[in-house]
């Protein structure tokens, strides 16, 4: 029997989304092949990109090995962001933790000014994350959009409860958004359809909700794998957006990651590798060593 490699080709293509401006701007997505399938027909023009997290206020409850690389900068988001770039991050994920109504409940205006300050100082693509309170995020992220007009930020999470407000502000001020849905491909499509009426689809990144290894990672894995296949193989326009995997927070809050440094880095690293293989285009990490290891591991050749 003669063997003939089953090279496959695909008819669907993931939209390419640009984030940031100037020389450090980055592009994600744009592929018309399954993840890491360099051997099939089609192309994967943009390799996966990595962001490191920066918090707007000194984080609490972090294991000392996560704090250690940032020890001298945790009170200064600008320096912290610069340090992340030194560690090799493609983008910064600025988390506006202090705006959380269950916490410090800091006002939107101050948060927006901080984002502007970081954006001006680092010149690297910025992902801006709210506190995951949908009402507060609507205020905060729209304010950020307005104050940082033209910065081409990636704002999120945008959910079905607040998409209208944030999408409008993002569209008017030239930003991209993260559309987040809770681990369900139909809810994801529903949100994307609603969004498509008020926001350009090629400015949307999807977040099917990332979970950590041992805490539901298999659900995220399969949703991402199916999302990518639905877009690339079956040409479903509502799943043809690049995917973001924000694994940092979920991984580092597990007891396993807090137990031991090596174990924590692998917890974050294996979650990232698994989700990259499932189809993530942009991964948010916390530890610079994870970033370095994951990037070297998936390097082609």
């Amino acid at each position: 029997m003669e063997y003939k490699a089953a090279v496959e080709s695909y008819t669907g293509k993931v939209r390419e989304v640009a984030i940031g401006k100037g020389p450090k701007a980055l592009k994600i997505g744009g592929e018309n092949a399954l993840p890491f399938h360099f051997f099939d027909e089609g192309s994967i023009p943009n390799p996966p990109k990595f962001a490191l997290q920066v918090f707007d206020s000194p984080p609490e409850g972090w294991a000392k090995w996560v704090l250690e690389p940032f020890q001298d900068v945790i009170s200064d988001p600008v320096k912290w962001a610069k340090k992340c770039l030194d560690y090799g991050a493609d983008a910064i994920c600025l988390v506006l933790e202090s705006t959380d109504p269950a916490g410090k409940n800091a006002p939107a205006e101050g948060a927006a000014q901080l984002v502007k300050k970081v954006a001006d100082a680092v010149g690297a693509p910025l992902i801006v994350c709210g506190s995951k309170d949908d009402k507060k995020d609507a205020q905060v992220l729209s304010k950020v959009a307005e104050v940082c007009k033209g910065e081409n930020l990636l704002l999120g999470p945008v959910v079905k409860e607040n998409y209208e407000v944030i999408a409008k502000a993002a569209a008017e001020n030239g930003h991209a958004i993260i559309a987040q849905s809770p681990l369900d491909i139909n809810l994801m499509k529903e949100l994307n359809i609603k969004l498509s009426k008020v926001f350009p689809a090629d400015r949307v990144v999807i977040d099917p909700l990332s979970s950590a290894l041992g805490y539901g990672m298999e659900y995220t894995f399969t949703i991402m794998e199916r999302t990518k296949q639905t877009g690339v193989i079956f040409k479903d326009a509502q799943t043809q957006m690049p995917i973001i995997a924000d694994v940092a927070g979920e991984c580092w809050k597990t007891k396993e990651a807090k137990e031991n440094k090596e174990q924590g880095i692998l917890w974050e690293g294996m979650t990232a590798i698994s989700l990259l293989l499932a189809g993530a285009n942009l991964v948010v990490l916390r530890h610079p060593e994870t970033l370095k290891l994951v990037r070297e591991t998936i390097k082609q050749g």
Partner: protein
Amino acid sequence: MPIKGTDVVKRLPEAGKKNCKECGFPTCFAFAMKLASGGATLDKCPYLTAEVKAELEDALAPAIKLVTIGAGSNAVQIGNEEVIYRHEKTYFHPTAIAILISDKDSDAVAEAKIKKVRDIQFERVGLKLKADLIALQHESGDKAKYLALVKKVCASTDAGLVLICTDVETLFAARDVCGDRKPLLYPITKENIDAVIPRVKQSPTPLGVKASSIAELVPLTTKLKAEKIDDLVLDPGSKNLTEGIRDQTFIRRAAVKQNFRPLGYPTISFPCFVAKGGLKEALAASAFVVKFAAITVLSDFDQHSLLPLLVQRLNIFTDPRMPLSVEEKVYDIGTPTEDSPVLITSNWALTYFIVSSEIEGSKVASYLLVKDTEGLGVLTGWAAGKFTGDSIAPFVRKCGIEGRTKTRKLIIPGLTARIRGELGEALPGWEIVVGPREASEIPAFLPGFAANLKK
């Protein structure tokens, strides 16, 4: 894809119209459908000619051969996978994790590695997680040294073995030391295959077949199959992870989609050779767990690199059609005492992990009652009638919590606030408290609640 029932029936006696019922099924057609789905075996039909039987046996065989390495309770089964992606059905046999010991390693290093495979294990969702195999590599050129290593490993552990040795004489001498364990012999190549065949026919053991490409594996497995040797494991000679993903994907496609028998075997991968060193090796292994390798060999691990890999493997190989569940009982979080809070949740493993880790994070020693909801989350469990007042009350009574604590306040998940009244009625003596809707709110809720309890 394996053969369909409608194709099987045409090969049965009188083209499937005999319907003698001797197989125990009402018609040949029913028997054929069962055969195709794996629910019946060919020997139930007494009228098949040897030729048809052999033909059907081959057609009905799984796309990827089931191969067993090792013997007894530590035998590891690999292969028998039916799909490419886990959402298409499920994966069946988790990637076997192996540690590599070379005969150039010092005694101390070798002993430490043996100990790791034997002793490092974890429990999760009632399952015991551990590494599976020891790969013994002949590098020293000294046959006696290699045999001594094999003997030492056999004497101190009953783990399954992979024997890695390019010298056929030494390989089979080592096999003879541990033949009863059915070790995997590796590498079988185009150079040594003719010397290997007669020895394996005499005393069967699984073979790891290696070539420098997928295409070059085909004549080797075809030749072995013709000699009725088909407990095979494939190594397409991938030189790095990129090639590894490519080769593993093509082999899985060939077996499952093209039904190409010469590649219908499980595979072996070597992060120890393609990603030398430490954490990168563990990460490469995790990529091979996702990308179809049936065995992955690491040069070393410790408890902190093995645990993430085992949990990742558990995640990928969890049956997506069936929620993982934990045992119904009282779980102690920290060291709870007679005035610690009592919480209740459902037994979906994910619910349990998240709730227990948030309670742990809140640093309040507590009792967590886990009610059997057949692996459903609290809200779906309630909807299915498995997390209701009437079903929770008897569990609270019989689980023994009343003898362990004076607390008579039971915290229920905020999502099921509606059962508060019915549960209160069904459970006299207890006050039902509605807790947070999300587990992530537990650390904000529990310390204050516990402080009030102690007053």
